[in-house]
């Protein structure tokens, strides 16, 4: 349609010619402070708790499984194909469906279960954020459709901040078609600025930190 016309207008307005070189952009500004693992964990938990998320720290993968079993208690769940969940033994708990690779099945399951269980590629302790890259191991809908999202995260994946995330992962698009940062439960304040959780995404989020 209007591609060439618009680009031409832009160039004329800016006084540039096609494929004219560009001065380097301002240097990237990323600051990554040294923060001990214990402090990261504490900060991750307190930020999520402030947002009404639930957090739990467990020493071992077995303990993570036991905690997950306690949350499940008769409810239905869909676990992502994350190898970490399998290693913890969470994918094989009673009531948990997993191993889905077909989109139709995934939609059906994610739309009906009580809990979606995932791991996370990273977490950001400064804000209580989970970073999820879409992959064969992690489908997007599992952290989105169920009303409760349970994430099991080994502690070494906890980074400090956005700055550290973009230092570790300068080009997220090379890894995945979708990177989503999740900071707390879904919320709205569209009616009289009253905060309501779980408007479209999960109303509950529980993050288990292992180690």
């Amino acid at each position: 349609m209007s591609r060439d016309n618009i680009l031409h207008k832009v160039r004329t307005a800016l006084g540039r010619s096609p494929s004219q070189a560009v001065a380097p952009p301002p240097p990237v500004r990323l600051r990554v402070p040294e923060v001990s693992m214990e402090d990261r964990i504490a900060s991750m938990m307190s930020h999520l708790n402030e947002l009404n998320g639930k957090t739990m720290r467990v020493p071992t993968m077995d303990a993570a499984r036991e905690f997950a079993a306690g949350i499940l208690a008769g409810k239905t769940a869909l676990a992502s194909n994350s190898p970490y969940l399998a290693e913890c033994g969470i994918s094989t708990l009673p009531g948990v469906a997993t191993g889905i690779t077909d989109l139709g099945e995934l939609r059906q399951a994610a739309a009906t279960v009580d809990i979606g269980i995932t791991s996370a590629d990273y977490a950001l302790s400064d804000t209580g954020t989970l970073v999820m890259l879409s992959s064969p191991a992690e489908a997007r809908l599992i952290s989105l459709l169920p009303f409760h999202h349970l994430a099991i995260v080994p502690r070494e994946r906890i980074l400090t901040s956005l700055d550290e995330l973009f230092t570790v992962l300068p080009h997220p698009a090379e890894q995945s078609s979708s990177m989503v940062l999740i900071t707390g439960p879904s919320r709205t304040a569209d009616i009289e600025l009253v905060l309501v959780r779980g408007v479209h995404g999960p109303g509950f989020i529980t993050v288990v930190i292992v180690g």
Partner: protein
Amino acid sequence: MSVEFDQKIHTTLEDANLQLAIYTATGRLKQKRVEAVAADSLPDYQELRTQANAIKKHAIENLDHYLEEFERNVEARGGKVIYCKDATEVSDFVLDLAKERGSKLIVKSKSMTTEEVDLNERLEHHGLESVETDLGEYILQLAHEKPYHIVAPALHKTRYDVAEIFTRELHVPNETEPEKITLTARAVLREKFLHADIGISGANFLVADSGAVTIIENEGNARLTTTAPKIHIAIAGIEKVIPRAQDLAVFLKLLARSATGQNLSVYASFLSGPRRPGEIDGPEEFYVVLLDNGRTKLLPDRSKRQSLYCIRCGACLNTCPVYRKIGGHSFPWVYSGPIGAIITPQFMGVSHEPGLPFASSLCGACGEVCPVKIDIPKVLLDLRSDVKKSEAREGLNRLELFAFRIFAWVMTHPQAYEIGGKIAASLAPSGEGKWISSVPAFMRIGPLKAWLSVRDLPPSPPKSFRELWRRR
């Protein structure tokens, strides 16, 4: 300026409930921003603003370069980029695609850009169902209204209004608890998400080095819109492009804090192309519509082009004493408040909306809160002088009336400023000298001064805002 907006201002000022709603909501957002950018919460706030400004400046000055880089990278990952000059081209593209794919149902997440081009109306006119899914936008779509605020679109609606709208349009019991209303919306919209063929989103940032669109939200409706349907179309203004994914660290820290006082919004999605081999979900087709719609008109002027740095955080609205009095529907286009006052006349031409650059008191608050450091007062002054130049050719006209009335009304409701000496209904001017000396200092600038000194006060509203407030 049309009689319609003139009237809108009048009714807004006289509606005590509405005044309270705007005042309370913007006041809370304003306070939350202040806390979120305070030194103990974000020590490098000013540095981040400076960096954000420098990145935007660089991107806009080299816009063609970054648009082409963005386009190349989207296409390398299997997406398509479509440049559209105006509303017709956008709707033609969507309609053609919908027709080719046999699509009937479209879900939309919040996008001011699509409001610009009246996309829903155009799609519905051609028999497609296009559903807004952001709760605020959904309420407004049911009420057949335009957004009141760029961040809190239904800020002017009370829970009772919303309950009534839901009962009327969805035939559900009249329920006034926000939690329950929200759950109703969740259930109704969930069905739409799962059956929609196309999802249309906006974009907060277009990342050139990644070919990615970045979408920031709290509800999860944008994630659903961009994940559940087979086709995702992102519609964004050409000015949204930034050079690198790494720049997002700066913008994400500023945007949510400035908008709602959150450290980060609940969801930030970074989407680059359709689902890849092996990925289980995500759209099969990925399109990015790059819209001009007047933006290229802002580029030639080195000062005024900074209007395009805007990241639509809404902070300038919340802090603006004029917006807080006259509300979002008193502005003639989808963008309201200080940012609306500077971009609307530029998109549409100053002689089309000559009153807007005057819809500000030049108190400077907007420029101070802007996370990308747009010098809004400076751009307003530039535009005022443009208006004056074009008016000089045409003689006095409707502009004077409109702008004058806005100012007069704001001034008769001075509590927002706490300026010395109450200028109220009782203080009618007896002569030009008295009037001009009774206006606050910020009014005694350039063209306004001359203009005020020869004008009479319009009839003042019968009660001041304070009186109305006290009566509650």
